């Protein structure tokens, strides 16, 4: 004769086991579902009349920045203009003959302009993961982005860089991404970097 408590205990354990198995199966099913395509509308390429802008382009050879005039089509919105500016800069860096090549697939996901005077640049993972490591090489990239933005979009006092929408310690092992950058101090740094040694 089996004691009633043993039977009850066994039944409870079986129910628990079945419940956990069902839960695990459910979770696995959810995890393995293919990602659905993004339904966000894609902005059409900017076209129309061009505007004169100044891009701060990094040069690995000599390790300096150079202010470079360009004419690019810019949309009306302040935030959209900021994004287009950085995309124009990245187009230079993604060219194989670029003086400061970035990894293929590097993109600026978004630029957020938050009052008062804060610019948040959101890069994609390919940008940071594929970036070459070194203090100067990382600094050239970051200063180039921030200085290009602040030189063409008035009113930016501080800047912050995120990667895939999240905080990251460094760009590629050196340049600090955890703090807000003081744009005035960065402009001084940009001047240092524009003078070849």
């Amino acid at each position, binding site marked *: 004769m*089996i004691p009633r408590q*043993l*039977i009850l*205990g*066994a039944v409870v*354990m*079986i129910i*628990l*086991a079945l419940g*956990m*198995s069902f839960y695990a199966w459910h979770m696995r099913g959810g995890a393995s579902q293919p990602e659905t395509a993004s339904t966000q509308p894609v902005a059409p390429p900017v076209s129309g009349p061009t505007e004169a802008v100044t891009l701060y382009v990094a040069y*690995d050879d*000599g*390790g300096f920045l150079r202010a470079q005039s360009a004419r690019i089509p810019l949309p009306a919105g302040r935030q959209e203009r900021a994004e287009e500016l950085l995309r124009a800069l990245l187009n230079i860096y993604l060219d194989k003959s670029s003086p400061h090549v970035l990894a293929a697939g590097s993109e600026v996901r978004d630029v957020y302009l938050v009052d008062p005077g804060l610019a948040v640049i959101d890069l994609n993972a390919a940008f940071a993961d594929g970036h*070459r*490591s*070194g*203090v*100067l*090489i990382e*600094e050239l990239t*970051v200063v180039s982005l921030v200085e290009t933005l602040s030189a063409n979009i008035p009113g930016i006092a501080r800047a912050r860089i995120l990667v895939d929408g999240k905080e990251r*310690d*460094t760009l*590629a*092992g*050196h*340049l*600090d991404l*955890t*703090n*807000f*950058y*003081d744009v005035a*101090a*960065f402009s*001084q*740094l940009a001047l*240092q*970097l524009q003078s070849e*040694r």
Partner: protein
Amino acid sequence: MRVAMAVLLAIASVVLLSGSSEEKRVSIYSTIANYSLPVLERNRLDYVGLLEVLEPLGTVSGRVNADHWRLRYNDADAEFTAGKRVARTRGTDFYLSANFILEGGRGLVPLADLSSLLSRVLGGPVTFNPSARRLFVGSVAIHFTAQISNVAPPKLIMNFSGPVNPSIATEPGKLRMTFSHDPVVAPGSPKLTFNSTAITSASFLESNGEAEVVISSTVPVLASFSNNGRTITVGPPPTAAATPATAAPALQPPALAPVPVAAGPASVGNAPVAAAAPYFAVVDASHGGEERGAALTEQLAEKDVTLAFARLLRQELDNRGLRTLLLRDADTTLTLDQRAAMTNSASPAIYLSVHAASQGTGVRLYTGLTASGGENIGAFVDWDTAQAPFQALSDAAATSVAAALHGKQVAVRTLTAPLRPLNNIATAAVAIEIAPPASDVAKLNSAAYQQPIAAAVAAGVADARDRLQAARK
């Protein structure tokens, strides 16, 4: 019915408990390689893949023929049969304690037989500690001694017979050294007690392929490496006894840092006069351990170049009478917060962080790009802007070092950079990035290239000694 119930209970328990247990591992130490492998449970016994065990030790191959598995290691043959206990090695029979398992072409042998099996295949002595799952091929064990230095502040000096690289963790009253890949073995007694009120005992433990030394203390302690990883000194942070209470602002990293900051003079003794002079400089070889830094070439990691240069720089500074603390003197991992906390605890006159890069040539010097506006509350200084009051001093030090490098015809450039932990350092702080000579990256790690640069940097620091020293008073 009872049997069915028992089986159901067992199944339910396994389902409920699965995934919570730690993976079993066995560590193998040899003169060729130290490594660890997963232990597999089959038929309620521990098994291990024999091919995986032998692969790091020499040329090995396994061939399946029906139920038979033939193994060849260098010039030795061994033959096993799935489901059988009898095997044949070097022409003689060998009996396993449980059946051999052939699983997807992979030969599994009972862990309990690994020692005697390897001894026959390798043809040499093999020692196995089954409870800790640690196997020693030949005479590779690293022994150590531990003794208390009675010079204040009290320190535990551990000397090892070979270089070691444990991971260090601290908790209140304890410092743990975990040796995952070092064949460290127990001293004569697994627990050593010391005649010290600050550092009371050290215990040796082994389990799951790892050894651990746990040091019990009544004061905050940290570990430093020297003698090429053969000596570990455990003691209070360097200036706990030597620095006046008003000399340095109280600094703590924003999160809980594993390395403690000095608790204050009262906690480590009452003989500051007898304590060693405070460090003039702290040299920090960036990166280390799992954090390799830049891949300078396929073989050369930034962490190795920075360590080699930092050692030369310490020597050059010491030669000029500038007492220097090297934060990392082995291939160990330190977080940026740990580096800053250790430096601020030592209250040096200058902090020098060493980096290396493959781009460009010569040397680049960086001082912090520190935002102002941090809120200091009493003696507590804002962590992110701790460098701000020392910026001018850092610039002066960088200028002096740059002049010394110019004097030696080394191409040098001085810049600012948002580079941690410079902004967390409460003293003069300069980062040095060494680039290769004329784009020849391989020469970056040569002593012939590094030595004159280290000498010039040390000379520049020595030239700024008076100003740096004055700022510390």
